């Protein structure tokens, strides 16, 4: 199994408060690696580190590009462009939905993206609203645009931060199917953050539980749900974990 990310002794500190402390973590190519945990546990922080958007306060986070491992500091723009991230609260350009989805292709200098853009919009059922401006969109629609603008890039790794948090069941289904499809048909490595334990069960190949900045369990999905190592995992899965 090829590693896509490897984390060693990474800590992230904001205002002298350590919000993430991960001694060791490896994410492999082709996985749907899912991070769960209570809010404030550090899930988004870990995702930003993996996306090479931030650098750990100490330790290293490596992305294993085909040409070799790189870090936040050593990654070239070509390395970065193999990763795409969807944020928990998407910020869109105040231009049409179509333009938002075209943006990532445009910065790559690609001209004839029309077919790809249309396909991406269709996959999130946003094609009818291609001409709309974000001000006219609901939260769920914005979230789907955010997924489409990442998907259209056909990234090697797709990092998704609670992509279905604002969605109704129909749209949750659309996005979940899309994640499965992307992983199965295109071999895209997925790193998914969710607070929905059922979603993790449906999609993940491996699940990690993050509590107060630490990974307390990191297991294949069946093990995570049926035979976890850490008692806190059982409590979290059964909904008994109180914070």
């Amino acid at each position, binding site marked *: 199994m090829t590693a896509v990310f490897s984390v060693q002794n990474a800590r992230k500190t904001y205002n002298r408060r350590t919000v993430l402390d991960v001694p060791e973590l490896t994410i492999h190519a082709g996985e749907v690696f899912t991070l769960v945990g209570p809010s404030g546990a550090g899930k988004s922080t870990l995702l930003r580190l993996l*996306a090479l*958007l931030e650098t750990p306060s100490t330790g290293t986070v490596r992305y294993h590009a085909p040409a070799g491992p790189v870090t936040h500091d050593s990654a070239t*723009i070509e390395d*970065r*462009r193999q*990763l*795409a*991230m969807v*944020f928990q*609260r*998407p*910020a*869109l*350009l*105040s*231009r049409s939905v179509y333009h938002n989805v075209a*943006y*990532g292709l445009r*910065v*790559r200098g690609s001209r004839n993206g029309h077919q790809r853009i249309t396909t991406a919009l269709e996959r999130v059922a946003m094609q009818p609203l291609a001409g709309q*401006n974000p001000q006219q969109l609901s939260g769920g629609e914005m979230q789907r645009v955010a997924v489409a*603008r*990442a998907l259209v*890039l056909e990234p090697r790794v797709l*990092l998704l931060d609670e992509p279905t948090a604002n969605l109704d069941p129909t749209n949750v289904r659309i996005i979940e199917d899309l994640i499965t499809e992307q992983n199965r048909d295109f071999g895209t490595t997925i790193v998914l953050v969710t607070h929905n334990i059922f979603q993790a069960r449906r999609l993940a190949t491996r699940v990690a539980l993050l509590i107060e900045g630490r990974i307390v369990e990191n297991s294949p999905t069946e093990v995570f749900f049926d035979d976890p190592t850490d008692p806190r995992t059982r409590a979290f899965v059964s909904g008994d974990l109180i914070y």
Partner: protein
Amino acid sequence: MQTIIEAIAQAIQLILTLDPVVVEIAGRTLLVTSIALSISMVVGVPAGAWLAVARVPGKKLFTAFIYTGMGMPPVVAGLAVYLLLSRAGPLGDLGWLFTIRAMVVAQVIIATPLVVGVTMSAVLAVEPALFFQLRALGATRLQARLAVLYEARVGVIVGLVAGFGSIISEVGAVMLVGGNIDGSTRVLTTAIVLETRKGNFDLALALGIILLGLSFMANLGMALGQGRLQHL
């Protein structure tokens, strides 16, 4: 009352017949102000955009200077340019005093802080998360910065129009450094002052109407453009 109505009638006639003096002065005014505004834009927009995002020591101090500059009485700018360009001044050898160039310099000094300040606020008003998220879509730093600046376009343009309005209607500085010389540095504002003093109310009014009209057109263009700009 009679004289005022007569003056207005004559002013309108002067404008409609494209009186050569009126046309010459209006043309020169537009020339000076457009050059000055273009320079302010080329300097001020990147500077404002940079100030909005830069994390450098002394930035707060510099920002305070910009805000002071925005509220600086234009005549003080005129005085500074006068001293710089006067024969004994450090740039006296250029021989720019009492030329259009001196007037452009003064207007640039008046308009630039405005353009910088407004650009900075407009860029700061853009959703802060956007830059980061564009980076996560593969934009280089420069590409993401430009996209954020583009998001701020309406604010930037409002700033440019405000800058245009402030320098085209300014009288003290251009009077000081231009000298209001007939046929070379006379512009709308300085001509209005002169003609009013001489009792040529019709000419003064005609020039005043044109000045108002230019300001109005800039603002109207902005108002019309705003809706469309947002949807570009």
